[in-house]
Every structure is written in structure tokens, then in C-alpha cells.
């Protein structure tokens, strides 16, 4: 059965490489993802103010669109969308008072009570296919490629929506990388913040945090850093031009597509950084 899929704004623009590689891989693996016929921006961040329900309308609307499709799951790929939607969903499920207010306010929409389950693509792969099966489907194992798995903030915090049952020491990304034949290199700062949206307001502080993450990944002797968030890619990838570090970055879905033997044109490597393309060329991965 097909599962609903929510792309979010950035996967249609700056992070097409994240989306296309994920969708093409899913289709090769026989996992059918169907984009919601209508969707809006989720708001990117979850409101932490108890008296501000207005910011919840956008993610709840998305969840209602998913409910209308008749599926019980909604798959996301972008980490920030995952976090915002999963938290809004929990709130609708657990906070009766807020649910009542929001449903009452959006009287043009059907009532929603958290019926959908929001899952990230990595969760979806693990639960629908499993790592052992994925390993069997890999035609081009990423042998000898040392990959640092980066979770950032949004895949494991708050703990209630963590992709991994052990949010303090997650392994889901390493398990995934191992199934692809790569060598994951765990590093202490894999769940430290990249600086996030503060790169707009206080780039110095944000990039100091990014440098911390990058330095930690480099010390683990990784060849490349695997990401699931377009904002992490901006801070840790593109903005490395302002930092003394030099480590390539790549989306997890691009590694998946490579391991499944999909053509490089489907990975949109032109949207990655120069050092990433250089590394792939050195590793004899054919680029278009």
C-alpha cells in the first residue's frame, strides 16, 4: 500500500538532492511514497510558548491533509519538518484542551486528534524493510567509505519523538550506513546543534557551534559527514567556506541511492559542495 509523503518547502528548492535520491531509492526498494496532493509549509520550528496556538495551525493542517488520504502514516525526509510535524501530532493526541481549541478555530477543517503517525524516512526504511533486507538489496556497497552519522537536534530531541529508542546515543544512522556497506564513525558531537537558524541572526555563534561539530567529525577520521537536514547542510556544508575545517557533506539519501546503484544524475550532486564532488570522483563514483 502506498504511504503518504510530505516534502516541505526546502526539498522542492535548495535540497532537491535530498528529495530525489530518497524517492528514487524508495521506488527501487518497492516502497511506494505518494506526495500529499495539497500541502503547506509546516512552519519549520515548533512553538514552545504555551499560549501560542497560532503557529500550530500550519503543521496540524498538514496532518489533516494526510488523514484525508486514508493512510495511517506520513513520511517526512527533512529533519526540521519531521520534528515540527511529529511534535504537533503528539500535542493533538495528548493535550485535549489545546486540541479542542485548535479544532474549534479551524472549523472549516475536519476534527483531528492525532490519528496519523509521523515517521522519518530512516524510521520508515527500518520498519518497512529492515536493515538486513536493505543490505541484501545493495548492489554497490560503499566499501571503505568512512561516514560520520550526524543527527543534529531535530531527529532525537525532545526524546518523545526521537527516531531512535536510545536518543542519548542513537545508532539508527550508523545501522543504516552499515547496511549500505559503509563504515560509520561515531563521534561525540553527532547530536550537537549546527547553529540552526541563528546563522541569520548571530552567524559567529552559530558557526562556532558548526565548527565544533565538524572538528569532532574530522577527529573520528571520517571521509564524509552524512546529514538529513538542509539547514545543517547550509551551516556544515556551504558555510565551511568561513571555517578552517574541510570535510565533505552529503545527504543520507544520496548515499542510499549510490549504494543501490542509481545513476548519479538522480542524486543531483551539482547541489552539493565542491569537496563532496571531489571526494566522490576520487572514489570512482561516476558523476554526470
Amino acid at each position, binding site marked *: 500500500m502506498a504511504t503518504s509523503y510530505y516534502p*516541505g518547502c526546502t526539498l522542492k528548492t535548495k535540497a532537491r538532492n535530498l528529495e530525489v535520491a530518497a524517492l528514487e531509492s524508495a521506488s527501487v526498494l518497492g516502497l511506494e511514497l505518494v506526495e500529499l496532493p495539497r500541502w503547506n509549509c509546516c512552519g519549520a520550528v515548533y512553538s514552545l510558548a504555551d499560549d501560542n496556538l497560532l*503557529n500550530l495551525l500550519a503543521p496540524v493542517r498538514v496532518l489533516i491533509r494526510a488523514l484525508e488520504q486514508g493512510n495511517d502514516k506520513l513520511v517526512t525526509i527533512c529533519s526540521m519538518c519531521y520534528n515540527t510535524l511529529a511534535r504537533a501530532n503528539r500535542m493533538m493526541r495528548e493535550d485535549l484542551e489545546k486540541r479542542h481549541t485548535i479544532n474549534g478555530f479551524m472549523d472549516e477543517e475536519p476534527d483531528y486528534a492525532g490519528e496519523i503517525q509521523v515517521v522519518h524516512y530512516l524510521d520508515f526504511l527500518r520498519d518497512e524493510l529492515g536493515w538486513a533486507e536493505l543490505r541484501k538489496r545493495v548492489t554497490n556497497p560503499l566499501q571503505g567509505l568512512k561516514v560520520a552519522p550526524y543527527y543534529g537536534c531535530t531527529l532525537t530531541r525532545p526524546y518523545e519523538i526521537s527516531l531512535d529508542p536510545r536518543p542519548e546515543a542513537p545508532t539508527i544512522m550508523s545501522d543504516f550506513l552499515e547496511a549500505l556497506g559503509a563504515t560509520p564513525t561515531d563521534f561525540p558531537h553527532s547530536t*550537537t546543534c549546527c547553529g540552526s537558524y541563528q*546563522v541569520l541572526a548571530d552567524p559567529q555563534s552559530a558557526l562556532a557551534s558548526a565548527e565544533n561539530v565538524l572538528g569532532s567529525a574530522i577527529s573520528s577520521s571520517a571521509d564524509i559527514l552524512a546529514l538529513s537536514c538542509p539547514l545543517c547542510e547550509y551551516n556544515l556544508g556551504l558555510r565551511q567556506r568561513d571555517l578552517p575545517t574541510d570535510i565533505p557533506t552529503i545527504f543520507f539519501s544520496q548515499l542510499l541511492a549510490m549504494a543501490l546503484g542509481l545513476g548519479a544524475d538522480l542524486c543531483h550532486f551539482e547541489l552539493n559542495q565542491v569537496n563532496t564532488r571531489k571526494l566522490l570522483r576520487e572514489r570512482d563514483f561516476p558523476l554526470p
Partner: protein
Amino acid sequence: MKKLTINDSTTSWQLADKIREISGENINTCMQCGTCSAVCPMFQQSGSPPRLVMALAQLGLEDQLADQRIYKVCASCLYCGVRCPRGIDVPRVMEALRQITLRQNIDMIHPAQIPEADMRELPTIALVAAFRKLTA
């Protein structure tokens, strides 16, 4: 060390109540252990520790709170919240302080001042997130 004056003229219990109301957190249970500062990725550069903000918030010390930068540079990474031994969701306290500023119509970033080159390169989620968190 800067001297803190705590008396009726420096303390705003209204402010402390407002922080409690918007955050939904009981800030009084903070025991000043400093775990939040230790894990905060934005503390070093900003020089403004979340622990201190908790103490100032408990006492409603308005002027001192206004001097702190941490709630403005906080990236909502949630690290302090998952680590606080008293179970305080510290990021919600930071959000409350931001909201109190924003609700006076004071923006913390000005979209017009973002260089055009950055605007072109930034992913949409960065812009949406920053405007949601830092503009009124």
C-alpha cells in the same frame, strides 16, 4: 563580579509570573546546577549562561535579564531541556523571554538587513525558522 541588587524596585514579580505563564514551566525548581550552561552550544560565544538567566528569571530581575543575550542567540536545540536534572524545559523559558520581547514589537532580526547574497543561498527552512523565532 557585578553586584545584584534585589529589592522591590529591581524585582518584577509580574515578569516572573509572565515567564511562568508563557513557558508553562515552574522556574522556581531550578537549583542552579549549571548543567544547562554546560551543554549549551551558544553559551561560549555569547558569554551568557542559561543558568544565570534562570536565576534572574526566578527573581524577576528585569534590567539584568535585558542585558543577557542567551535567549536571543538560543538555537532551540533542546539540549538544556533534555539534560536538566530538575526536569525544567529550559528552551521554553528562553522562548518565553523571546516572546516577552517580541510582544513589545521589538524584532531580534531585521529581514531588510540580511544581505541579498545570503537570501539567495539560505534554505527556505532557515528563513522561516528565524522569522518565526525572532520577529514579532
